[in-house]
């Protein structure tokens, strides 16, 4: 293995182990050694988070392991993002406003999706939990959002996603809507007129790419 491959492998393991201190340190080291930020992301961080996702699927990882993996990825991204922007100022895949709908205080799934979207090259504004419909729309306008992501973890708060879909359509903004959350499924997303649905955080990145992802040269 070349030195670079060793470094990428260490980054991957830092993410997989949820070791945010190591992930940040290795990201700094990568930049110091002249590794392009995009390469460190694509060959270190992304394989790490993918593997964490696989371990979740296999029942080996649980929520704490998955979230700490995402946090480690975020720590590395904090270091790499400025370099990424310098390397290619137009590299953002799109602008995303994300939050949990009003009345719903669940934060974890939404934060995980936000972290992975930003690690994948989207510019993300995380509005937190219990976000009123009006604030989603106002933020989408201010932020120039290409995509709004709304999570609902309760059957009692899901109807807010439908309100949001209607409000976004009515606003005339270009932002598309992706919905998710434990009780949400594709049928609901279609029924309320959302543009996209994802049933896990990794799938959310793929759907976001499909919906609004722009190439780096765009």
């Amino acid at each position, binding site marked *: 293995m070349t030195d670079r491959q060793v470094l990428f492998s260490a980054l991957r393991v830092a993410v997989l182990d949820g070791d945010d201190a190591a992930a940040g340190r290795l990201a700094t080291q990568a930049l110091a050694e002249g590794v392009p930020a995009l390469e460190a992301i694509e060959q270190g961080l992304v394989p790490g988070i993918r593997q964490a996702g696989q371990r979740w699927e296999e029942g080996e990882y*649980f*929520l*704490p392991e998955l979230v700490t993996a995402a946090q480690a990825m975020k720590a590395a991204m904090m270091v790499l993002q400025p370099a990424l922007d310098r390397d290619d100022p137009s590299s953002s895949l799109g602008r995303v406003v994300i939050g949990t709908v009003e009345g719903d205080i669940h934060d974890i799934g939404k934060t995980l999706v936000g972290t992975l979207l930003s690690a994948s090259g989207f510019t993300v504004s995380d509005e937190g939990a219990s976000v009123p419909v009006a604030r989603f729309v106002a933020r989408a306008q201010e932020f120039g959002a290409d995509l709004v992501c709304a999570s609902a973890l309760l059957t009692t708060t*899901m109807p807010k996603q439908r309100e949001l879909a209607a409000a976004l359509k009515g606003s005339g903004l270009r932002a598309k809507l992706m919905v998710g959350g434990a009780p949400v499924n594709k049928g609901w997303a279609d029924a309320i007129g959302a543009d996209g649905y994802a049933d896990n955080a990794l799938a959310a990145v793929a759907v976001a790419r499909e919906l609004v992802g722009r190439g780096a040269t765009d």
Partner: protein
Amino acid sequence: MRAVLLDGGLGSMLIAAGLEAGRAPEWWNFEHPERIEAVHRAYLEAGSDLVHTNTFGANPLRLATAGLAGRCREVNGAAVEIARRACEGGALVAGDVGPTGHMLPPLGTTTVDQLQRAFREQAEALAEAGADLISIETMSDLREALAAVEAARATSLAVHVSMTFERRRRGVFTIMGDPLVPSLIALAEAGADAVGFNCSVTSAEMATMVREAAPFIRVPLSAQPNAGQPRVTPEGVAYDASPEAFARDVAAMVEAGAAMVGGCCGTTPEFIRQARATIERVAKR
């Protein structure tokens, strides 16, 4: 011995009665006490031996996010009073305690001490208002469940605690990774008078969990499944199990050793009525 019949879903019944999306059900203890009492009465008429108060989110941490900060005592007191009115015929009032929604590390920064203080405040309010026992439900982190048990035990009321598990590829766990049998044993050792599981899964799946856990648990075991799987429709959420199928699984759960059975999300008085008939039939065998 005849199994104790708990009640069914409360939140889903309140939604059917007009609770708006995003509104904390605890508000209705003040605004629509008669609607809550009607749900309690419907379950009692269907055969429940016990009803849970409308206080699932009535711990101080969660009330603060629902616009009810500082009103823990008042909310729990009102809810117990409503349930007590409905139970005048002698059924038990279980003071319901749910998760705080605040996460312990590594997912959050809340401490066990903060959780315990919140649970103590709620448990004391429930006890003071005259609840017959404390029933802790839908816990997914064993540490939080243990904090709630310790706080509830300080009231000297009997304590029932129930966690929510799912079958993963390597066994049955909570979403946090707490395994089924060791978690229930830990809760019983911490002094819970009854332990069990609720929510998340269908009655058929829960019957298999009862079979797995019953041989290892020395205190009464409870099981409160959902009415099947939630199906999302343009009108809202519907659950796909019939009361008949639910009642068949109740028989399986009781025969496998469940001492307390009831329903969680999506179950209605009709589910409880059929479960009552099943319990009587099994008891005669």
